């Protein structure tokens, strides 16, 4: 299975003239075969300012590179937004980075990794997060009365098939989620 790697900076705004011959060439090369995974990584500063752009990018990736429906593209927007907000709030200090990696496999799955540096004021370990999710997943959502506490336990866990937390080599946390395309669900 082939993989392509792309790293975009947070303020990357591609300008594409699809009618230009050279752009046509690039666009043709970027066509993804059905059995190929595409890996795209985005590194952004620890600042929620960039989240609207990340949501737009997530929508584009899920709608155009996976085979998921628009409904699931919207859902994965929320999943990525919640995971990244957690990384901003708990994981990486201001001035540090957060890395978001999308791995899309056409007609099969979308995977997302969100990595922080563990330099934030409220650092959480993989064990902390696994325990939190185990405790709160499946709780009646209507029973939650606090302003926080719905992102991971309700939105992320409901709209993914797999959630895993790992302590990474930077001293931070990496959250890995997978959503598989299920016939009739996408």
């Amino acid at each position, binding site marked *: 299975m082939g993989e392509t790697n792309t790293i975009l900076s947070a303020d990357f705004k591609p300008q594409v003239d699809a009618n230009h011959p050279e752009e046509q060439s690039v666009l043709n090369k970027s066509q993804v075969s059905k059995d190929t995974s595409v890996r795209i990584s985005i590194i952004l500063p620890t600042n929620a300012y960039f*989240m*609207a752009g990340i*949501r737009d990018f997530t929508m584009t990736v899920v709608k155009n590179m996976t085979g998921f429906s628009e409904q699931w593209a*919207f859902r994965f927007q929320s999943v990525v937004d*919640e995971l990244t*907000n957690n990384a901003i709030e708990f994981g990486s200090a201001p001035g540090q980075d957060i890395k978001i990696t999308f791995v899309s496999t056409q007609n099969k799955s979308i995977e997302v990794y969100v990595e922080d540096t563990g330099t934030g004021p409220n650092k959480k370990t993989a064990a902390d997060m696994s325990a939190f999710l185990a405790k709160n997943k499946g709780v009646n959502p209507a029973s*939650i*009365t606090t*302003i926080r506490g*719905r992102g991971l336990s309700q939105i992320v866990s409901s709209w993914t098939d797999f959630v895993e937390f790992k302590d990474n080599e930077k001293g931070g946390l990496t959250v890995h989620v997978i959503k598989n395309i299920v016939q009739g669900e996408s």
Partner: protein
Amino acid sequence: MAQVQITFQNDTFDNKALKLIAFAGQLDETNIDSEAKKIYQVIQEMPEPNIILDFAELEYMNSKSIGYLTDWYSKIMAKNGKIIIAHPRANIMDILKVVGITQIIHVVDSIDAAKAELSEVKTKA
């Protein structure tokens, strides 16, 4: 940064004061804390807050904005008021369902339906 516009309009139902609050744009981590204060102010100022949240032009809301929604609900209920959500887009309805908001706040498909719902609820009460 996400952009959102919130507009407020006075209305009535059954000779009672009603506030129509329309959202346009996206509610996320960058703006919800400041925007939420405007809603709290409305709730504080109304003796019996009857509020319709018009979500027709709301494109995105994150978990924290949903958390504020539940807090507004609690404060409105504490003052014997009522809150109805009107006309959310499909993606907004989807997220409201997954976090259980539709179990506690009525959601209808138009402003007229929201007003009718308010009257019905008040009659029953």
